[in-house]
């Protein structure tokens, strides 16, 4: 582990470990050849951070309060394969937070028209299982997971559904239409400095963290993390950066 004081002193001079600017992402890459058995899948790399997301559709009963809407279920597995700090066992708080932040970004932006996932009102709707697996944690898993999730969903196909059965592996010509592409940007604060896309070593020195999900400049989800508070002007500055980053990241989704 690198000296924490060194990381902080660098940032104080507007410098960072990976030789990037305070408001600069590491290299972000999306690819789609993850798993042939998924209905939609994507891999996102941000620097050395790598995650994969697969979407699988199933048919189930709608929630009674939304009888004509399908649903999404997001899960995240922080695989112990991806970091010496992750342990085996049921999802802990970090995995649950990660999954819920991704879920909210998609749900609240209404990226998906949930009504189009209805098969028979009150009885049968499509459920999209969006499953996240971390492969290598080098910091800022949230942004990687959110980007991979929306990219996987954008490329997902609905399986055929005949005689009350889902024919896995056979696809109808119905595509998943996304009305918006929510983009998640995570920022960190150290002393008076704000950085974007904190790397693993930077994460350990952050005073606080703010994750912002936007679509077309509107904010759809936020999540604050870290030990310390944020000032009003810091929050607005962070949101401004997130909105600016949305445009760049959105271009990567095919």
């Amino acid at each position, binding site marked *: 582990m690198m000296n924490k004081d060194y990381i902080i002193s660098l940032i104080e001079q507007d410098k960072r470990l990976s030789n990037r600017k305070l408001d600069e992402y590491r290299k972000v890459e999306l690819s789609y050849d993850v798993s042939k058995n998924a209905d939609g899948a994507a891999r996102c790399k941000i620097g050395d951070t790598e995650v994969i997301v697969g979407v699988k559709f199933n048919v189930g009963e709608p929630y009674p309060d939304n009888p004509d809407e399908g649903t999404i279920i997001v899960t995240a597995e922080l695989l112990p394969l991806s970091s010496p700090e992750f342990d085996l066992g049921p999802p802990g708080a970090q995995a649950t937070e990660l999954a819920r932040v991704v879920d909210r970004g998609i749900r609240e932006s209404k990226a998906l028209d949930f009504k189009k996932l209805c098969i028979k009102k009150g009885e049968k709707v499509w459920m999209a*299982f969006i499953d996240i697996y971390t492969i290598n944690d080098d910091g800022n898993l949230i942004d990687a997971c959110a980007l991979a999730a929306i990219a996987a969903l954008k490329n997902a196909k609905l399986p055929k559904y005949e005689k009350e059965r889902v024919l896995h592996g056979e696809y109808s010509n119905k595509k998943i239409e996304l009305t918006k592409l929510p983009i998640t940007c995570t920022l960190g604060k150290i002393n008076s400095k704000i950085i974007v896309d904190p790397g693993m070593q930077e994460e350990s020195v952050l005073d606080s963290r703010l994750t912002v999900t936007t679509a077309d400049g509107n904010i759809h989800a936020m999540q604050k993390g870290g030990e310390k508070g944020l000032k009003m002007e810091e929050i607005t500055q962070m949101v401004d950066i997130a909105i600016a980053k949305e445009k760049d990241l959105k271009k990567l989704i095919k």
Partner: protein
Amino acid sequence: MSYTKRFDGRKFDEMRKTEAKIGVIKRADGSAMFKIGDTIAIAAVYGPRKLHPRFLQNPSKGILRCNYDMASFSVPDRKRPGPSRRSSEISLVTAKSLSPVLDLSKHPNAVIDLFIEITQANAGTRCAGITAASMALAHAGITMKDLVSSISVGKVSDKVVVDLDKEEEDHEEGATDIPIAYSPRTKDFTLLQLDGNVSKKELKEALEMSKKGCEEIYKLQVKTLKDHFKGEGK
């Protein structure tokens, strides 16, 4: 009816296309990917590191702890994320297939953690996992007597074949699956499981076939590791 031609046109003793890669997970002490046909396994090694909880520590030797897991979207019908009875058993036999080539007495009180993730499955996942794991252990610099190579053999209808795919495993006239791990230098079989129905003669034939298959995989493992370390030296 007998099985005269394989569904995908392979010869009976021909395995699917293989591919291997080292260092696929930066954070790990050692890692590897192994692909055979449409089955993809990645493996990461952490350690040797201190074993927790402490009561499991053994002052005379370290332990190898394996965890095999399949991604929910790796199979046609979504698998519920997390462990299952099947994955616990596979984790156990994987550890047993690899520990014969390790010298764990070198690592008292320690654990070598080995994680295997199947990201895409089309039969033979435990074998692909073991093959990847063996390379990951070597990449992590763990002292090993040899690499372990793994392949499944079996019987589809009436024919002994190597490297069954999913379609063959589900053959309507029945299929016998025999996952094998083999250490070519010591000539030890370190994994042998079977479910189905074969005669003694067929088993012998299958084992011979698996030896040939493992030797082929072994060559790829050695070449991939050598190429990787050559590149690092530059």
